[in-house]
């Protein structure tokens, strides 16, 4: 077994220098070819993830936010090698995932799992709940016979389901319960790292809280590390130690949740935050919004320079500085481990746009 290979990560993106990170991405790119014509010639590529570097510490939860098509799901899949990287590195416990042999990769897969958004599409309707949860245990030969059945019941209990449910089928369950089954299946192999890909987006509001609570409880009890991908910025802040913001395949901001939400250093983060509705009419009336103009450009042909400049309010406010159009900004520290990829991050930080004041608790009986 290889020891931890020291990465060339910038210290600011490396969360806890005293400890080796569990997961690292370095210059990670995932491109999808665009083929066209009868010859199926490659005419371009979708640059879903286009040069992303960060690390996740053991027992840390990193939230990943961004709009559809920003590459956050592709990034999550690449971290556990459900997608192969086009370029760059992904390391798990210091080992390069791309270098692993088939057998090594299978063994590594026990350590990393994924929970999907759609609790309806991700469970085989012809399998009983018991069989669904037992499948990874069998695949990885972790237990057999009575011990396996016992383990399945234990897992169902762990995620808050009645262990007597093993012989039922997915359609007999509600969306929230199905998501619990998905969590139980992910936990079956005792992973250390779980990619949660929009785990609450398909659920009703009253159920979303249950699943968030469950994920937080399990993290506590089992010492799990999460990459929590969601477009729900409030949910991400609730569960994450740090948060990364993606735009058009790039990580544009990363930092401790408290810093990223109270003093965002990228104009896009501010725009995103200001677009999130807050269930308080008084706050809604008071707040100043940045309404972004236009749509997200195509990831097949991102704008030159800073990819956000075509929609950026700060760019307009600063009189359209040339460097935004010409030079792609790199992630750089604005304050300790809080980093942003913006030439004018300091100006963005000193705006008050987008930030929502927080009360400590709802003043309600």
């Amino acid at each position, binding site marked *: 077994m290889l020891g931890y290979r020291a990465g060339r990560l910038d210290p600011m993106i490396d969360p806890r220098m005293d400890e080796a990170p569990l997961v690292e991405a370095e210059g990670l790119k995932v491109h999808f070819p665009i083929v066209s014509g009868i010859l199926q010639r490659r005419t371009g590529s979708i640059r879903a993830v286009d040069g992303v570097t960060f690390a996740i510490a053991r027992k840390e939860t990193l939230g990943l936010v961004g*709009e559809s098509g920003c590459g956050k799901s592709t990034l999550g899949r690449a971290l556990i090698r459900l997608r192969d990287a086009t370029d760059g590195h992904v390391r798990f416990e210091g080992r390069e995932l791309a270098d692993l042999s088939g057998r090594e990769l299978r063994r590594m897969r026990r350590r990393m799992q994924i929970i999907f958004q759609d609790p309806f599409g991700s469970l085989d309707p012809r399998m009983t709940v018991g069989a669904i949860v037992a499948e990874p245990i069998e695949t990885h030969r972790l237990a057999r016979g009575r011990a396996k059945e016992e383990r399945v019941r234990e897992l169902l209990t762990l995620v808050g389901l009645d262990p007597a449910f093993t012989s039922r089928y997915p359609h007999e369950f509600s969306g929230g319960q199905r998501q619990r089954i998905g969590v139980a299946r992910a936990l079956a192999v005792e992973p250390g790292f779980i990619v949660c890909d929009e785990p609450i987006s398909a659920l*009703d*509001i009253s159920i*979303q809280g*249950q699943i968030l609570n469950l994920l937080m409880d399990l993290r506590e009890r089992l010492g799990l590390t999460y990459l929590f991908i969601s477009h729900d910025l409030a949910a991400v802040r*609730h569960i994450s130690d740090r948060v990364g913001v993606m735009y058009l395949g790039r990580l544009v901001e990363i930092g401790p949740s408290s810093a990223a939400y109270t003093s965002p250093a990228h104009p896009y983060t501010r725009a995103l935050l200001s677009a999130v509705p*807050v269930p*308080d009419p008084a706050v809604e009336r008071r707040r100043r919004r940045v309404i972004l103009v236009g749509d997200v450009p195509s990831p097949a042909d991102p704008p030159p320079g800073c990819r956000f400049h075509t929609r950026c309010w700060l760019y307009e406010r600063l009189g359209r500085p040339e460097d935004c159009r010409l030079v792609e900004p790199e992630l750089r520290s604005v304050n300790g481990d809080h980093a942003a990829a913006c030439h004018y991050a300091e100006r963005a930080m000193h705006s008050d746009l987008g930030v929502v004041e927080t009360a400590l608790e709802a003043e*309600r009986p």
Partner: protein
Amino acid sequence: MTRPELVEISTREGARLAAQLADDADRHDRRLLHVQDLSTYFFTPGGAVHAVDEVSFDLDYGETLGLVGESGSGKTVTALSIARLVAEPPGRIVSGEVIFDGIDLLRLSREEMRLVRGRKIGFVFQDPMTSLNPTLTVGRQIGESARTHLGLSRAAAARHAADLLGTVGIPRARDRLGDYPHQFSGGMRQRVMIAIALACQPMLLIADEPTTALDVTIQAQIMELLRSLSREFRTAVILITHDLGLAAGMCQRVSVMYAGRIVESGVVDDIFERPRMPYTAALLDSRARLDIEPGGRLRTIEGLPPDLLDPAAECRFAPRCPHRRGICLEREPDMTPRPSAGDGHTARCWGTEPGGWIP
């Protein structure tokens, strides 16, 4: 009170239209919409599903009302019932009144109803791709209802369509009239839907989860558009949403639905500051919010909504309610007034009635 014109109309047709609109709006202290005890059931082999059960509410001219609830609460069926768009069978409006601008819509013939729908009620649905016709240009789709209902000429309808596309914020509107729906992005398609809905200057716009399929920055654009259009043209809006935040920012009044019933109604500030129905409070607390410091567990609502096949006589939220007492399981409470800052705050809860046990 006169209704401003929807778009800058310089044509003769436009002048006639504007006069007619001013005329239409010359109604005094009457409500635009009065819904009383509306019930819509779906008849299945297993029995009648009470999708909407004795729902009552009012809407003023130019007002924006939020109809808030989770999936299956009956908010969409309520809206479809108002417009008489419930698929029949299996659905049927079994009782109630829907008085729209002085007319009981439930008594109109199919043909009359079609005219009201096209002319006075506009719709925006969640998924613009399924409600737009993929084989017709957007110019044609926008212009068509203006030609049918307003009697505009082909040329006038085209001008009208271009104006509308511009109004809803589509760049180079005139050049895009000949484009088909698939040539627009999701957010732009929803703008096209709004242009179609507004083509005949309706008095009421029903927006059913209009931004649920869209990204949050695009949602903000669409909401800003709806807000400014309803203000500018005094179009009343029923915003159907599961997102309490959207309702907080958009609506003057909110009605919360649960299991086919309206369970709480009132001015938006009352509903959010002092909810008088435990379900509303739970809904507000079960989601992470940007305006509340994170940390700790979210409050959750255990259990599931009841089966609406012959619902029991108890309060429908009682099985999941942390405050329930014996009476809640015996009899369902009525919607009764609650003293609040704003007018007309009502709730369906024994515990918050005067002398009740919920503070």
